[in-house]
């Protein structure tokens, strides 16, 4: 197992797409300085009476939200690039225990995505603090738990990407699914009639962050929300169900 893990680590490290994805995440984190700077300027220009009504979404969480998609793509490419090149045959000839190979791949993808997610959240937090200073802008209160959870959801997206990639064996198809879960499904859920938009909305990955870490006094766009324990269970299901399905599919199907 450690050998398979080490091999997958080497593979992820030597794939160009890994560095492109991490580069894009770093770029997103860096660009968050712009809204931080703009918010500070706006705040300074507003008369004190109107400052109370100014609100800016949490920048670290915004950065993580963008990283969901990028790391989801990294998870997809970690497996579909092997299918598209045929490298999967060499991989599974070297490690014929297919579940071991998948778990090893999931392990390294999870570690990289979690590290990238947490780094994004906390780097942007530090940058935003530095730029915004002590201006008490609504939405920019430091909420460590939510930033931490946002990083965890980045990892969840990467694992969903990996699983869907293993199931579909197609880069484009899997990216469509990940992008759907990232933004399209939440938007569609929002359009559902009254109780259902809240019920399904509370299951969306981004909503889980607030449900698990507490909303910090903000009202969620996703509605009432689940209790933390249930939200944790849903988050775990986001990883376990697709990954389990991918494991079974990989075990049963012939390698193309």
């Amino acid at each position, binding site marked *: 197992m450690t*050998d398979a893990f080490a*091999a997958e680590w080497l593979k992820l490290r030597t794939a*160009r797409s890994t560095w492109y994805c991490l580069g894009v995440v770093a770029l997103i984190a860096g660009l968050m300085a712009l809204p931080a700077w703009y918010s500070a300027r706006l705040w300074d220009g507003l008369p004190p009476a109107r400052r109370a009504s100014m609100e800016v979404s949490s920048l670290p969480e915004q950065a993580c939200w963008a990283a969901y998609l990028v790391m989801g793509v990294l998870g997809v490419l970690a497996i579909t*690039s092997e299918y598209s090149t*045929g490298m999967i045959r060499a*991989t599974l*000839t*070297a*490690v014929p225990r297919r579940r071991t190979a998948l778990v090893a791949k999931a392990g390294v993808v999870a570690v990289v995505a979690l590290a990238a997610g947490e780094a994004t959240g906390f780097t942007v937090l530090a940058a935003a603090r530095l730029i915004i200073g002590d201006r008490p802008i609504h939405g920019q209160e430091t909420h460590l738990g939510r930033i931490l959870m946002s990083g965890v959801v980045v990892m969840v997206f990467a694992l969903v990407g990996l699983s869907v990639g293993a199931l579909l064996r197609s880069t484009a198809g899997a990216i469509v699914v990940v992008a759907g879960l990232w933004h399209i499904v939440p938007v569609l859920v929002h359009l559902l009639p009254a109780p259902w938009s809240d019920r399904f909305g509370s299951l969306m990955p981004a909503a889980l962050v607030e449900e698990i870490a507490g909303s910090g006094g903000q009202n969620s766009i996703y509605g009432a929300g689940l209790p933390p324990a249930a939200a944790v269970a849903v988050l775990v299901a986001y990883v376990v169900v697709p990954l389990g399905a991918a494991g079974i599919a990989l075990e049963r199907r012939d*390698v193309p």
Partner: protein
Amino acid sequence: MTELTKRYGGAPAVDRLSFQVRPGHVTGFLGPNGAGKSTTMRVLLGLAAPTSGTALVNGRRYADLRFPMHEVGALLDASAVYGGRTAVDHLRCLARANRIGTSRVAAVLEQVGLAGVGRKRTGGFSLGMRQRLGIAAALLGDPGVLLLDEPVNGLDPEGVRWIRELTRALAAEGRTVLISSHLMSEMELTADRLVIIGRGRLIAETTVRELAARFQRGVLVRTGRVPELARALEAAGASVLVEADGALAVGGLDAVRIGELAARDGIPVHEVTPRSASLEEAYLALTAGSLEYGAAR
């Protein structure tokens, strides 16, 4: 390989195929395109599950091997590499999973003649270079069994000869070498033993020599005194045909007997050559009934 069957949808790609490959020889695995060679290899490597039957390496299922590259080295599809990785990194990824050290990576790259381009990305490699890289991967674990699927595809004549010498040397070290090909002419020079399949079924399990003998086509004799020799040979029970260039095509007698008869009658003979159909023809004759995508004749 015992009674191996693999179906895709309805039609079997491999149909109750049984054969054994022994160490110390290069075994050619021959069949027309679509005969089931690659499918057989994929099943053997655990990449495809057999519909029925078993395929074992050293008496065990490939999937049960813990570090399989130490026992079996395989080249399936040389172009199947991730182009963004360097040759060294590509091999290290495979080696690491089987606890093979980095020094071995350098050694196999040297062995296949790619040491100079080890730090280059494989995306820029020619098909011939990728074949060499694939063979390097197969050799990584210093395995006793080598399975090479169409290793000479895309190689230049020098590369083809290199594969021939390499595989013969590996077999001479006591390893089991199975090489698939649809080209009899190549196997004729490389392999000792032959497994010939068509439409997923075994057509012949034989040696190059046996196959040549089976398709023996008499003896070619040249002499200055054609009518005299023809009469003498016919008297001894041979069938004699005079060919356009004046040579005699003799059937029913071997070269030794022909020589003796000529000497007895004092007829000078310029040439006595046992003729066999080329192995190419023998192979075509064997597989004619099983062409999957043959041209209509």
